[in-house]
C-alpha cells in the first residue's frame, strides 16, 4: 500500500493508503476526499480532478501529457505542478506523495 496525502485549501490534510495501479483520483474517490469531483470518471475529459502536486514530488509524478495539458485549459487557477490526478498512476515510487486540492474545481 502506498500513502498519499491530500491537503485541502484550508490546510486540513488527510493521508490515505492506496493500492498500486490505481490512479490518485481513484484513491481520492475511494476515500471521499473533498474537492475531487472527477465528473468524467477518469477519462481525462473534464478537468474536475485538478490537483497541485507538491514541489518535492513533481519529478516523480512527471509532467502532464499533451492531452492532459489540453484538458488543464478547462481547469481553474492552473499553476506550476497542476495535474489531473486521474492521470497519475500510483506506484511504490509515489509512497508519501503530497497533493493539494484547489479551492475550486470548475
Amino acid at each position, binding site marked *: 500500500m502506498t500513502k498519499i496525502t491530500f491537503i485541502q485549501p484550508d490546510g486540513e490534510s488527510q493521508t490515505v493508503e492506496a493500492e498500486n495501479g490505481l490512479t490518485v483520483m481513484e484513491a481520492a474517490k475511494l476515500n471521499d476526499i473533498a474537492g475531487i469531483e472527477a*465528473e*468524467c470518471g477518469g477519462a481525462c*475529459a473534464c478537468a474536475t480532478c485538478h490537483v497541485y502536486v507538491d514541489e518535492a514530488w513533481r519529478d516523480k509524478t512527471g509532467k502532464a501529457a499533451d492531452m492532459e495539458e489540453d484538458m488543464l485549459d*478547462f481547469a*481553474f*487557477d492552473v499553476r506550476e505542478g497542476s495535474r489531473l490526478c486521474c492521470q497519475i498512476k500510483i506506484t511504490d515510487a509515489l509512497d508519501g506523495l503530497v497533493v493539494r486540492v484547489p479551492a475550486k474545481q*470548475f
Partner: protein
Amino acid sequence: MMDTTPAGPETSDITEAAASSGPIETDALIIGAGPCGLFAVFELGLLDIKSHVVDILDRPGGQCAELYPEKPIYDVPALPVVTGQELTDRLMEQIKPFGPQFHFNERIDSLSREADGRFRLMTDAGTEFLAKVVVVAAGGGSFTPKRPPLNGIEEYEGKSVFYSVRKIETMRGHDIVIVGGGDSALDWTLNLAPVAKSLTLIHRRDEFRAAPHSVEKMRKLVEESTVRLLIGQVTGLEGANGKLSALDVKTASGTERIACTAMLPFFGLTMKLGPVADWGLNLHENLILVDTERFETNEHGIFAIGDINWYPGKLKLILSGFHEGALMAQAAHKIVYPDKKLLFQYTTSSSSLQKKLGVK
C-alpha cells in the same frame, strides 16, 4: 474535446426535422441522443412506435461524442473494443430503418400533460411536440457552458459575460476579452476582431488546441496589433450593475488590470440536470426515480433510461441503459397501442420484425 465548437460530423445520414408550424405529433419523444436514446429508437421502432429525438448538442452520441469520441469502451457486449464515436455511428446505422427525426441544438424546456393524456413539450427554440410517451434519456443532463468560478460572475452573465454570441453586431465597439484556447475561443477572436474597440485573447499558455489555421490567423492579427494575446488567467471582475469595466489577469510578471466591457469565456461544457428537475418527477439525488419493470417515472407515460435514472442497484453502464430501453418499449406500447396485444418476437426469426428492419 469538450469545446463548444465540435469538429464537423458527417451528418449526411441524419434526418434533421424541418421546421413546421404547430406542434409536431409523435408517438414517442426521446430527450437525449446519446447511446441509450438512440437505442430506444430501435426498441420502440420494433414495436411500431415512431420517435422524435431532441438533443442540446449539434450531433448524436451524447457523452460518447462529446466527452470521449476517440476513447475506447471495452464493456459493450460483443464489441471487445469500440470508441465512443464508432458506437454512435453503429447505433445510427442500426436505427436507420425506423427513420427517427432529430432536433439538434435544442433543449426541452417545458413539459405538461394535455387533457387527452398526451404530453406537450416545448424546446428553447420554440419547437413544440405532442407526444404519447416521453423517454428521458438525458444522461448526465444537458451540456451547458462551464462558468468560470470568478466571484460575482453571475450578475454579469447575459449583460457583459457571454457564453455564446448570437449577433456579431451586439459586440461592436466593445472592449472584448475572450478567454480560452480552443476552437470557440479562436473562432470568436477572428470573427469579433473587426467589430471590437479592442480585443484581448487570454489563455493560460502559449499553446492552442484550436485548428492550426485559426491559430495562424490569430497570430497574424496579434502581429498587426489588431488583437492582443495575453498569457495568463483571469482572477477577478470589476464593474457594477451587471456591466463589466475591467478584468484582473494574473500573468507571469504579476497581476494586470485590463479594460473589458464584454467577456466571452470558453472553458468547455459541463452537464446540468436542467429543466427536467422542474417537471414534477420524483428524484433521488438529482437522478430520476424509476421502477425496474417499465423504467417509468412517477408520471405515467414518462420514462427515464440510462445514466439519468436511478433504482436500487443502478449501474451507469451503456449496456444497462440498453436493457432499460427494451423494457421501457414494452410498457410504452401499452400506452401508444392500448388495444393491441403485443406478441413477443425475436428479430432472428420474426418476418414481421425483419420487414421493419428492411431485411431482404
